[in-house]
């Protein structure tokens, strides 16, 4: 019958052509549904053809059945595609009506204080190098705050500390360094610690001075710790904290509890070293007092200064936060102004 053609097969081919076109071109859901009922419905065109299969001779039924199913699948696919298109168009229209430029719903931002963030970052860098974090009391004895650190009380070296006294012999610690002595008294080398903490000095308060301020101290003591290791460690820290392009330089300085003592300066983070107001035109910014632990400190805590050597350093996370964020006034750090804190909130 192939020559003369089977009328049902021809009919199916025609249905496919018409039906695909009708479904594909349906203008809206209603037109699509009408087309679906017409071609794919229970009494639609395809069903009609398939219902007539029984009247065919046995050898013709199979090809018609196969063709019928293929046409049905093709129509169904077309319907599905077109239905999805129309749905998308519909939701796009709805969305356009909803004005998605309006602001979204949020929660209050929370976050750490910028000084805490600096302290955390410093601690993290040193923890990678095997340092642990310790704390000490803010109310200290003169012995820990001064004597153990080789600072004679009746000496100009103690004057720079501008100490708050609570009573005779009891002070608000002027630096975190007393924790050096406390740690060494309770632990044997190797000791590698960082000590964040609040310190107090009787300073009049202005944009760059506060009576209450944060400090972070570091101490490394073991056999064979030398100035070369000290310098290398600090340079590593500077590159990690301030960036790989930042340069470090070490200058002579004086701290009673270190010898040799050094002031660590970094190339100005604002101007890169060409000179600006922040670095007072020098291109360098002091970030850290440091040096090799003075043997007098080892003697005070009962370490053998012939056997052990070490280095110590201290820096001001408050000042570093000012530098990092370009904050002009130290006082902003402690006001608890939500408008200020929210600028640094991370969550």
């Amino acid at each position: 019958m192939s020559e003369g053609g089977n009328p049902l097969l021809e009919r199916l081919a025609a249905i496919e052509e018409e039906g695909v076109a009708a479904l594909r071109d349906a203008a809206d859901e209603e037109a699509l549904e009408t087309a679906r009922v017409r071609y794919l419905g229970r009494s639609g065109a395809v069903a009609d053809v398939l219902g007539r299969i029984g009247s065919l001779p046995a050898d013709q039924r199979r090809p018609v059945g196969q063709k019928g199913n293929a046409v049905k699948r093709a129509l169904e696919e077309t319907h599905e595609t077109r239905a999805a298109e129309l749905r998308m168009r519909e939701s796009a229209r709805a969305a356009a009506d909803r004005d998605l430029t309006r602001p979204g719903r949020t929660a209050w931002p929370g976050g750490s204080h910028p000084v805490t963030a600096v302290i955390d970052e410093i601690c993290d860098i040193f923890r990678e190098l095997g340092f642990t974090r310790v704390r000490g009391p803010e109310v200290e004895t003169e012995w820990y705050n001064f004597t153990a650190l080789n600072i004679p009380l009746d000496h100009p070296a103690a004057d720079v500390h501008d100490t708050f006294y609570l009573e005779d012999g009891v002070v608000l610690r002027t630096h975190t360094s007393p924790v050096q002595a406390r740690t060494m008294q309770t632990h044997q080398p190797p000791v590698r610690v960082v000590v964040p903490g609040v310190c107090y000095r009787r300073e009049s308060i202005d944009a760059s001075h506060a009576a209450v301020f944060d400090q972070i101290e570091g101490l490394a003591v073991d056999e064979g710790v030398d100035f070369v290791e000290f310098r290398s460690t600090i340079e590593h820290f500077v590159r990690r904290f301030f960036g790989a392009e930042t340069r470090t330089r070490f200058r002579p300085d004086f701290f009673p509890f270190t010898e040799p003592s050094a002031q660590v300066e970094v190339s100005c983070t604002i101007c890169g070293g060409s000179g600006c107001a922040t670095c007072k035109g020098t291109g360098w910014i002091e970030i850290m007092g440091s040096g090799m632990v003075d043997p007098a400190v080892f003697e005070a805590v009962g370490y053998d200064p012939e056997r052990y050597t070490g280095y110590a350093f201290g820096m001001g996370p408050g000042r570093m936060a000012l530098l990092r964020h370009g904050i002009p006034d130290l006082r902003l750090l402690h006001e608890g102004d939500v408008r200020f804190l929210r600028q640094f909130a991370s969550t």
Partner: protein
Amino acid sequence: MRVSLNWLRQLVPGLEGTAEELADRLAMTVTGVEEIVPVGRGLEDIRVARVLELREHPDADRLSLCLVDGGEDPVEVVCGAPVIHEGGLYPFIAPGSTLPGGLRIEERAIRGVTSHGMLCSERELALGSDASGILRLPDGLEPGTPLVQAFDLPDAALELEITPNRVDLACHVGVARELAAEAGLEVRVPPVEGADWEPTWRDGHEAASAGGVTVGIEDAARCGRYLGAVVRGVEVKPSPAWLQARLRAVGARPINNVVDATNYVLRELNQPLHAFDLARVRGGRIGVRAARAGERLRTLDGVERALEPAATVITDAEGPVAVAGVMGGEESEVTAGTTDVFLECAWFDPSHTRHTARSLELSTDASYRFERGVDRRGCEAALARCVRLILATAGGKAEADAVRVGELPGPRTVVPLRPERVQRLLGLVLDAGAIEGLLAPLGFERDETGGLAFRIPGWREGDIRREVDLIEEVARRHGYERFPTATRPTRPSTVPDDPSFARSDRVRRLLESRGLLEARSSSLVARSEADAERPVDLLHPISAEEGFLRGALVPVLLRRLEHNWARGTGDVRLYEIGTVFRRRAEDESGEVPVAEELRVGALLTGRRRPPHWSEEPAAVDVWDLKGLAEEVASGLCGATVEPLPLASGDEAPALGRFGAARWLGAERFELVGPAGRIGVAGGVRREAVDAPPWAEAVWALEFGLGAVELAAPTPYRPLSTFPAVPRDLALAVPASVRAAEVEAVIREAAPEWLEDVRLFDVYEGDGVEGGRRSLAFRFRFRARDRTLEDAEVESALKQIIRRLEERCDARVRSA
């Protein structure tokens, strides 16, 4: 501390480099330079001029007309200064020239008389701050001489940081030594032209006499050495230009030739000296002793001072004439009428000088140096140099004998230095020769008697006493920047990480994820924020507002809240982790009388969420606070949150501990851990905070950081794969029955397959009989091992309801 660059160059012949270069060299190897101050810039046009004739201005009382010889033809200059001397020398600027500030001077008529130039004040020349009169120049200069030539200008002054150990850098020779060592040059102190004096010393342990003066040290602890010389027949007048120039360059005011000579030696050699008018030293006797109660002295600054026994004084036969090592007395100061001078050059004890200066609240160039320790071996040279300077500038004749009382310095300290120790500490391999090469230029002489050792020069005796002190000098001279960089193998620290850090990390994560911002408040507070019962106060506070240590965090955060309110911010969610302080009770032991505790404080006020156009803003309420407290308590501390009745018997001490008695309102909770109360939470009473009318209610909590558990691994609970059966149950219970009781009864009566139950609705009013309220609970039943049958769920619910009826007088409203 200022040093003059020209002065340094004079002391180190051959020294090269600009001010900036030398400052940088000093900063990298010696000490920091805070500032480079230009001195005498732009004075090229100023010349020395003599006032030949002085007349009154015909039309103005306050003006005078001066006929001035500026090296060329005399010209007439109008001058407004109160005092001008005929024959005197003054700085003169001719028309067409400019002053340092850039002001161009022109010929101009003043009240009808043309002024051909101007005579200048110190300030106009930027040589000092005095604008009150024309700068009188010392006699002996030739009119027409450029001022820059007479005053060795231009110069630059370096403002040095002097650390407490390096007082030797507070003079030019000290700084010159360092620069010379760096440059491989030598320090040469130029001799005083035209004066030569070497005394015969009259020594005594406690007393000695020479030149008509007897000196006695009554208290050797206060004064180690006292040297004195007498110069008779001096002519007190302004110093020569070169001497004035040196003093001006470092910011010192020239006074007269005798006083200037002492100041010059102070700044050259670091030795403070004092010149007395010998005629005013009663009885020709000088003594050193402690001041006596009731003694008074008018010092050089014109202030009448009561002396305390802590102070050391110099006396004459009748009483104090100077404060030792600090300041001379006005009565015996050298003035224009002085003819005979007694010159003191002493070594006063650092500690006593410190107490002397403190007792008078005075700090002077002299006390600064004595406190830090001057070179006790340098007294002879300094006195001789000063006498010669006086002879050269003031004339007169020095007595051949001079007194010298006290201990003569013994041999110099010898400090050994092991090269292997240098290597151990610095990581540098240097042999004895290399070390000597670094130290010798600074005056450390190698001692040849044993192993490597150095004799310490007098000017470093206070600082260098131990091997390590010398090693620092080696490191410094080697140059910190020249050390190699190398990593070393390290061993792990024996010190464990303090667990408080992990605790605060947990707290921060929770609170920040709930939209709280971290504050870092000052711990210095007013009395109202200190511990209520046992406040910790400072001995000498800066102000009453900062006179105490904080006793709790919430009161401090409330002050921060007020700060925000004052700036119009109403949505405030803050937390802080920090130390609080209270004084220990008498029977409580501790190294210090203050107990410290790490606390967490938090406060919430304002809208629950950032305002959004889709909804009405709701303010934070007690349930927000309780929810946060519950998250803190159960999530971090293994604790629960319980309502805290107002009438609870132990309330005062408990609330006191958390500083809460001051702020906690009626809606209040306690955080209860296994060991008892760990914190409090609740509403803030209105009167506890200075709130603007528009402020919302404030909610706060505070707890001890120590209660936070360190995160332990959580054991896994199997997830049921069987379906859940939900049920709701609304109960009318008497108003006195608490939701927590009902829930407890439910849990007790329920089978183990009650997966969850929670209160989801509370209702009072229509449909609920009086005195009762409706509590609706949502149940979720699910077994781990099977699908639940409806019948068993119903039976379980019945069981629960029966128990609720018995125990809570509950009535089922719907099931």
